[in-house]
């Protein structure tokens, strides 16, 4: 699905990613963990195409296409979804209008007919239920006045609506209480199937109790310094990052 080779990237002239290699196949869930400042969010943003982040070398291939040469919106239309760590507010634009536009732009790009308003509404009701959003949230402006938890739920709601091929979820668990964490995780598990893939970017092991990854990678100083199965998370939880990073610093 996505293959990242020797990816280096910088922001404001500072090199953050120092050569990332990662392959994610359909049906897999990968977790990227690491201490603050290790480059986790940078990786997510470079892949999504945030203009502040500049990829200086390496390649990212997504569905056999060169991702880095694509405009941000085309990456999205190809099936790449970024769940934001800090979802932005867009006053005056209802969730419904926003999502309808997004879905139809993506469908148009993929030569699919637009969703009829009825199909769209039906889908919205169905998916909202999964993340426990009531209809008032749907008609409210995008993220405007939402609590931290509501914003994160809204990200997962969008994930379910847009049905991308690859979801990169950047710190989706941060700031959530245990109930909200359960709802959000449940949404991700609903989304997951053998044709799509998920990359979880997270600080903590607790998210992985709910969404079980196939692979875990530890990112440190812009490099993946250790990869393993889900048991790696438990080890990290127990010992912290020090035991791996010691030799690296």
């Amino acid at each position, binding site marked *: 699905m996505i293959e990242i080779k020797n990816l280096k990237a910088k922001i404001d002239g500072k090199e953050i990613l120092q050569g990332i290699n990662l392959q994610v196949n359909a049906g897999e869930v990968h977790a990227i963990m690491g201490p603050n400042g290790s480059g986790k969010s940078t990786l997510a943003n470079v892949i*999504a*195409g*945030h*203009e*502040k982040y500049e990829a200086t070398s390496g390649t990212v291939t997504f569905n056999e296409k060169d991702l880095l040469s694509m*405009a*941000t*919106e085309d*990456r*999205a*239309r190809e099936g790449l*979804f*970024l769940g*934001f760590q800090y*979802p*932005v507010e*867009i*006053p*005056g*634009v209802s969730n419904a*209008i*926003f*999502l309808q*536009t*997004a*879905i139809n*732009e*993506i469908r148009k*790009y993929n030569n699919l007919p637009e969703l009829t308003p009825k199909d769209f509404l039906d889908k919205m009701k169905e998916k909202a239920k999964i993340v426990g959003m009531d209809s008032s949230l749907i008609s409210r*402006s995008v993220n405007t006045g939402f609590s931290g938890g509501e914003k994160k739920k809204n990200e997962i709601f*969008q994930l379910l609506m*847009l049905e991308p091929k690859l979801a990169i979820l950047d710190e989706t668990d941060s700031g959530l209480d245990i109930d909200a964490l359960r709802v959000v995780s449940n949404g991700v598990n609903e989304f997951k199937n053998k044709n799509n893939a998920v990359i979880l970017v997270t600080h903590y092991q607790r998210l992985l109790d709910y969404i079980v990854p196939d692979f875990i990678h530890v990112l440190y100083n812009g490099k993946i310094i250790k990869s393993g199965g889900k048991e790696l998370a438990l080890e990290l939880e127990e010992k912290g990052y020090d035991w791996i990073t010691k030799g690296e610093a």
Partner: protein
Amino acid sequence: MSEEKDYINEVTDSEYKWGFVTDIEEEEFPKGLSEDIVRRISNTKNDPEWMTEYRVKAYKHWLTLKEPKWPKVEYPEIDFQDIRYYSAPKQAEQLDSLDDVDPELLKTFEKLGIPIEEQKKLSNVAVDAVFDSVSVKTTFQDTLMEKGIIFSPLSEAIKNHPELVKEYFGSVVPYTDNYYAALNAAVFSEGSFVYIPKGVRCPMELSTYFRINSMDTGQFERTIVIADEGAYVSYLEGCTAPMRDNNQLHAAVVELVAKKGAQIKYSTVQNWYPGDKDGKGGIYNFVTKRGVCEENAKISWTQVETGSAITWKYPSTVLKGDNSIGEFYSVAVTNNYQQADTGTKMVHLGKNTRSTIVSKGISAGRSNNSYRGLVKIGKNADGARNFSQCDSMLMSDKCGAHTFPYIEIDNKNSTVEHEATTSKVSEDQIFYLNQRGIATEDAVNMIVNGFCKEVFKELPMEFAVEATKLLALSLEGSVG
């Protein structure tokens, strides 16, 4: 591929779609202003004597006044002798049948999308079409007359309903009000006159469409809307002009009277030629609009201002009667070198009067956009309340947004609230929408429309759609 081409064409053409010139024979006065010209206009319009005298008095008063310099706009001195004060298509009289109207004029309004052929167009909008200094066609007059509603060009109303016109003309905006109001009173040549009788709810939207065509000609129209006790009317105005290199003057006066329990909803989509990318040409839009509310009456102003090189207007409401309500909803967009200094005045005189001001300013390019508003609470206005919200959005690093709120309170039992925000269309918002598959241009439109939503929802349906499109065109290419 062809779709892409269409898009490119649309983008390159879309600077100003209404900029064509109609090739038609016009009767024009020589340039310049004098008592003689004022009398000639009066004569051409077949004014009754009181009107001629009124014009001359206004002209003489104007001579004693100085052009106001307080707005935050800059422009070279206007040479009032270099302006033509009257210009009309040769066929100046309104005709009963459209068959007799010059086909060039018909084509013009067709091109502008203005419904002047009743049977072909939406049946719920009556239109008065004004071309330079005269009205070309007013639709649905007969249908409206059945309910006693008068909707006619002002010059026709002066003839057919002289008592009504005499009673209200200058009653809200006297010629002594300001420099441009005096000028308008002296040289106005057309406008619309609306009268809704007691207790009548006007069954359709009334609208006037103003078109400037002739070169070097100023347009000076006067609109008077009277809603008698308990009546209701929704009135819309729109305007466009050809693209020309020199600046043209538009100095209109609008007077509204809402009697006891009446309601007037007045909406404007102002789209005069804004000048080119380098700030050359464009309309100077210096307008005085004011309404008076009697007891329990309500006046709502809604304006979408996207055009004009310079806009200078403050639609105001005098809340004279107890429990009356004034509202002002405004979106003002400036791009390139446009300048706008616009806002409102809410004058609370009666008890328990209420006013709401929602102003959205959007500046792009090198433009300057100012909100200027006055909330005045008179000493007898016990329980008066005002809420003002002024939001500015910046789309570039070279534009300016300014807010000048003036508050004068002479009554302690009143409440005035003012909120103001300034924001930039943020990269993060655009990235967020991009990441959901929405291209930058569409993302900007979405963000800006969201910003204006509180105002757009006040517009009648068809106008809201037009306003949304206009906004997109005005701001095309201004981000990224």
